[in-house]
Structure formats: C-alpha cells, structure tokens
C-alpha cells in the first residue's frame, strides 16, 4: 500500500481490517481519528488519490493502487498546507479531535474548487461533525485557505 508517499507492507492479520484501523493500530499513523465507525462523523477522513473518503468504511483490501494521504502527509510536521495554515491563523481547533478529518475534507474541496461558495462549503463539510462547534471558524478558515492558495497575505498580525 502507498501511504504518504512511502510503500508499506500489509501483514496477513491486517488484510481484513478497515483502512482506519490499519493506519492507526498497525502503522501508528494516529492523526486520523476514530469517531463513529460507520461513516457518520467524518473524523476518519483521508484521501485516496486526492479524493476524501471515510477510512472507517474503507476495507484495506479495497485500497489497491490508490495513493493514501493522511493528515501526517498533508503538510508535514510543520503543518504547512494552506488549509493547516488557515486553521492556525484562525485558531480553529477546540478539543481538536475532529480537525484532521475536517482539514482533509476541506483540502479535497479546495482541490476541486479553488474559490468555494458558502453553499459548496456546507455541502462538502456536512458530513464532518464537530461537537465543540467550531463550524463558524471552519467556514472562515476554508475561505482563508483558498486565499492563501491564491497567494494572498495573512489578514492581521499572527
């Protein structure tokens, strides 16, 4: 399996696992979170070839040749992806647990649509729950990330 641009082995005991469990419990890529196990909350969102998927519902056996990207592979240890930079500028996280999934969904949205409308943000993010209620900041941060991708300077001092 190709995960964050490296190739990893899938031992026999893990071939029947969900991609989420394989990433977390076998590879130790714990940035991707378990929230519901049924594709209802979005905390486990990763990219398969750039498309956002729920890794809790994706069997390891279904990944095939697709490139898996997790939050660890999005912008590295310094969190340099425009979405992560926008999330930092706007101090989006509260407990932070759902935010990897939020950022992966947001990054996939921005790949499809560099200047998303309010409505397409609602649509893209509707399946990502945040119990702390950071939705207003997530919305602002997606607009801000789009601006960063367009090369606009940060607003205000950070």
């Amino acid at each position, binding site marked *: 399996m190709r995960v964050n641009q490296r190739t990893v082995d899938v031992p026999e005991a893990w071939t*029947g696992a969900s991609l989420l469990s394989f990433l977390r419990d076998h590879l130790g890529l714990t940035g991707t979170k378990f929230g519901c196990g049924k594709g209802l*909350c979005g905390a486990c969102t990763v990219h398969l070839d750039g498309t956002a998927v729920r890794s809790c519902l994706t069997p390891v056996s279904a990944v095939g040749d697709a490139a898996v990207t997790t939050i660890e592979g999005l912008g590295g240890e310094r969190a340099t992806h425009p979405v992560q930079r926008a999330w930092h500028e706007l101090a989006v996280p509260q407990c932070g647990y759902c935010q990897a999934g939020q950022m992966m969904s947001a990054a996939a949205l921005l790949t499809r649509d560099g200047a998303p409308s309010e409505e397409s943000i609602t649509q893209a993010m*509707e399946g990502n729950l945040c119990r702390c209620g950071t*939705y207003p900041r997530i919305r602002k941060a997606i607009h801000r990330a789009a601006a960063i991708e367009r090369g606009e300077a940060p607003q205000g001092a950070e």
Partner: protein
Amino acid sequence: MTAPLSRREFLKAAGWTAGGVTILSGCSLIPVLPSFDGPSAGSELSWVQLWRDGRVRFFCPRAEMGQGIATGLSQVVAEELGLELGDIDCRYPRTDEIQKVAMTVASQSIEEYFEPTARAAATLRTELERRAARRLGVAPSALLLERGRFSAAGARVAFAELLSADEDALLPAAEQGRVPLLSQRAASQRRVVGRDAPLVHAERLLSGREVYSRDVRLPEMAFGAVARPPQIGAALEGFDADAARGGAGVIAVVEGPANAVGVVAETPMAATEGIAALACRWRALTPEEVAEVDRAVDVDALSVSGDLDHTPEDEGSLSVGRERATAEIDVRYDTPLTAHASMEPRSGVARVTEEGCEVWTGSQDPWFVQGHVARALGLDVERVVVHNHRIGGAFGGRLLCQASVEAAWLARGAGRPVKVQWTREEETAWNYAGPGFSHRIQAGVDADGEIAYWHHRMAGGPILISSALIPDHLHWAGDLAPDPGTRRGTDLPYRVANRRVDFADVRAPMPTGAWRGLGAAPNTFAVECALDELISAGDLDPFSFRQRHALDPRLASVLERLRAFAGWDAAQERGATLGMAAAAYKHVTFVAVAAQVSVADGAPRVEKLWCVHDCGTVIAPDRVRAQIEGNLVWGVGMAFREALVLEAGRVATTNFDGYRVARMSDVPPMEIELVSTDAAPSGAGEAAFAPAAAAIVNALARAERRRSRRLPWRASA
C-alpha cells in the same frame, strides 16, 4: 398488584429519614469519589519549573478538553516570567508529577486556577531575580526582565545560567509574604494576559501529532474488548471461552470484576471477533423491569403523587401574588435525556508490572481513574500512575473510567499491555446521560408590569450526586439531599417577591450525571421560554422587562447592549422575526442572546445569532470567543436535534444517525460582543448555550404563531 409507594414513603418505610442517617463504615462499601479539593497551599509551586535547557515547563493543573485552558494558563505563566507564549513547554501532568487537584469541571479553571498559576510562576521569577541580582551585583529592583533573561547596567544573564551546576531544574520554594503578580496589573500594562494568543500545541494539533489517549501505543501492546449486555442491568449468565480462545490472534479470555468478561488479541478486529465468539448469554429483563426502564420523568405526575420532595425556594406568598396578577401563564416544558457525544470515544491503555500499574487515558479527573484502577487490581493507590492526555471533548462526561479499569484487568490477565478503545455505541450507551427534565411553570404579572408570582415545579435526575457514581447500596443517601446540580438555573436572576421552586431528582434507569451546564441548561431554557410567554401575555417589552427585574446590574447591562448590538428595534420594523433570552450563569457570568429565524415550507431555520457576554476579566479573549461560538452551536443543537432515546431497556440512539448533533448546515452566522470588565474572571464554558436555545425557540414561537414546548422542536409540516 400493590400501589407503588412514593419515594418519600418508601424511604420512610425502609426506616431512612433525614435525621436518622446511618454512616456505613468499611472501606469497600465506600465508593471511589471524584476529586473535589483544589490545590493544597504551596503545592502549586511545583507546576512551573525552569529546566537546564532554559525552557520553562508548565505542568497544566487542568485537563485540556477543548476549552483552551492550556493556552489560557500558559498565557499567565508567560506574563509572569516575561516570556512569549511559545517559550512555555506546557505539559499534562501524570498523577505522580503534581499533587492532586480537583477534577476539571464547572467552568472554574480560570476562576480558580488563574491565581495559583500566577503565584507559582511569580515565585519562580522572584527566585530568579534574587539569583540574577547576586550574579550581576545589583539590587533586585535594578533588574530589567527581558525575554528569558535579566539585564542591569549593560550586563545580562539568561534564565538557564541561573541554575547551579547540580540543579537539573529549579522548583522555587515558597516566598515569605506575597509575590507581586504581573498578570494582575492593569490591562494596559500586560503583554500576554488578556490579549489574543496563538493556540498552545497548535502545530501538534494541526499536523496530527497530538497524542490523545486513543493514540497511545506501547511496545508489546495488545488490544482488548469487553462484552456488553443487550439491556441496561442484564446479568451475564454464561459464555463459551474455548470458542473465543480458538480465534486467530486471540491471546486470552479474561474474566473481570463485577460479572464481566473480555478478550485480549493481537488486533482490534480479532478482539471484537473474540467477543462475538464468546456467544455470551444474558438474563433478559422482565417486561416489568423494562417498563421501569422506560418510565418518564413527569413533573405533573410527581406533583400529584407528592413526590416533588425538595423546595429550595419559598419566598412571599404565591396566593397573594395570584390575586394581584392581571395576566398569567401555566406552561409545561420538557427536555430529553442527552448524550455528551464527545468526538473521541473513551479509551484506556494499561501496563501491569510487579511495581504496580500505569494507565494512559484522557479524564476530567485522573485521580478518580487512579482510585478506580487501584481498587480493581487491589493495589495501593500510590502504585497506580495515570498519564492524562488531551481529551477529544468532555462536556461533563469524561469522568467514568471503565475503559481504563477494563484495560487494567485485561492487562493483568493477559500479561501484556492492553489498549481498550470504546466504540461510538459503547460511548453513548455506557456513559451516564444528561437527565431528562420536565417543568411546570405558573406565573403572573400585575397591572404595573411586575412579576406578581413565579412557581417553578421541576423533575430532573441526579447530576452532582450522580447515579453513576453512587453504588446501589448507597442510593438512598443521594435521595435525601437535594441535588444542587439538578436545580441550578431555577434560582431566578430576576427580582420576584412571591416565588417558589419545588423539584425532584428522580433516578432514571440509565445513570445520569453532569452534562454541559448541569441543570442550568434545561432550567434556564424553561425559565427563559416561560418568561417570554409571560411577557407576551402581559404585552410587555422583553428587554426592559428583564432589565427592570434584573438582580445584578451586569445582567441589565448585557441586555441593554444586546438590544443595540442585534439592531433589535430596526429589525422588528423591517419585519424580521427575532427572539431573545438571557442568563446569569451561577450568578457570575451574564449573557444575553438574540436569534433571527425564518420558516420556509414548514422548515424552521436560524438565520443569525447575536450574543453579548460578560465573564469579568478575560485572560484569553480568543478562547473565550471560541467557547461562546461552541455554546451558540450547542443552542442550535439543543433546539432542533439532540435527544437520547431509551427503548426496550437499552439506549436506542447509540450513533450519530440516532443521536443527532448540530452540523454545518444548521449553523448560522453569529456575532459576539465580549464585555471585558474588571470583575473577577468567571466561567465561559457553558453560560451561553441555554439562552441560545431559548432565544431560538422564542423566535420560532413568533414565526410559527405556536410553540413547541418539548425539545427538540418539531416542525409543524
């Protein structure tokens, strides 16, 4: 069939009366209780330490669960030591790294830990000043505190150089007299406190490197799971251990305390399959027991049966008030059982050795976890160390520690470190719930527009005397005392001469306990909705009526500000549909919220929310704003979505398809005005959400010309 005894009659029949309480002795009968006491005098000094690498280590005495306390208290440390926020190495301490502190609850972390934290950092600064003065040969008063160093007359000395050769770290001793606190200076003189600051641990959080307890991995660690009954209270009658042992990857089948059985395996999947292979047999509840499980908390029925045992307020005379009343209301409001629905289902990792047991978890009270694990393993408390991690949401629900206890007995049984990670279904069904409430409010206004009387009858469930914390054999004790958590919010922040509150805290078949705001959420909601109905009945103005009756001028002030901030009068003239509500959370934090709503094709929608919020001196303004935003989102969820449903003796709404919380499309634009005053800091974690729900419902009642008095709001279409 015999007629059921009322609870009070039952207690009498059983020989228990308030005057005749028998104190049970014997250690094993006394439950492990949460930690209530704040830091003992002087123990706070160990929270802030200077290490040899020049970094200041701050052992945050509060659990971080999204409220931003790591950032807020780190700001205080930075202020006192002349440092920037990024210079502080903020850590979540183990139970053996600092002395026991109270559980992290009740929005009190800034209120109660601001000053001890400031004192700890200021004491370290004072010791550093003394050493720097000696080193530079000047008086301490001649020193200038710069970022991480002192200077005087052109000479400089860095903090790290002030450690002697044999010191790994500097922990200051208590100072004689008071140390000056830089974080309590006037706002204009402060550099960090009261100003927006970047999030502590932001990079870790955003890159996926923050270690929540579910993310902990140990060498040789295996995965555990425990069999759950199909109904609450169903006893285990048998299981097929051999079938489970034969499964691929299964390491051990372990019997635990209290009639439990679990499986330890090499992968989480193998552990889950092992539980299925056990084919556990459970005693099904009888139909009578199930009926008991589904019994409603019904204020009117309890009122008739004389079971509203507690009367915390009884002032003036209701009958005198009734005679004066020119307009009256008599309304019933109901709010459902609720789940915390934290995004992170709980987990525990345990390693058992000859020395004792180490546990990794995320808890609002790591010392409570320590006590429970010690008891389960029969160890002295000192032999259990709990590593506490950032929590993926708590909301009052991160106290019970079954996953940690299970990991401990599974680890001992399997001879390997074990991680137990609860599923969403386990998290919803086997935690305590926020109690369902029902209210009967009768009230009147007189010809002068004054509240003539106010009678609030209410039935809720135990919260602070939680039925999840008090074992069955001690439940009678909880029944005797009125639960202050259950009644919170019934004590009106408005002046009313003739008033009475009666209530019962009825044990539901599902254990109930703390949920964001405790009783303040359902009670404030009911009070502010009933008040709105009373104001309408008397054809009065919702702002000036509340302002006129406000007991605290700060409540009157947020109301006055909200009217202008929301453009209330202009919006009314435009024909917009608005509602409003207010709250005086614990009589220390004052909030007023306005909501604009619309209804299209029978579908109600919140168009906008405004909130004016006064929690006194603000330490971390952006984190306070974030808390208020979250509260407003919870208000939307409370109004439209949340309800925990019990069916056939079990929780029916165990995942997010059944237990629905607010999502992106529910959330309107919101504007927040933060009133910063010189008053002492007070809580912001749970003040705004009940008035938000009430403001929304008050607006919807206007929009639809009918009122749904049972939450969540049901659309009329």
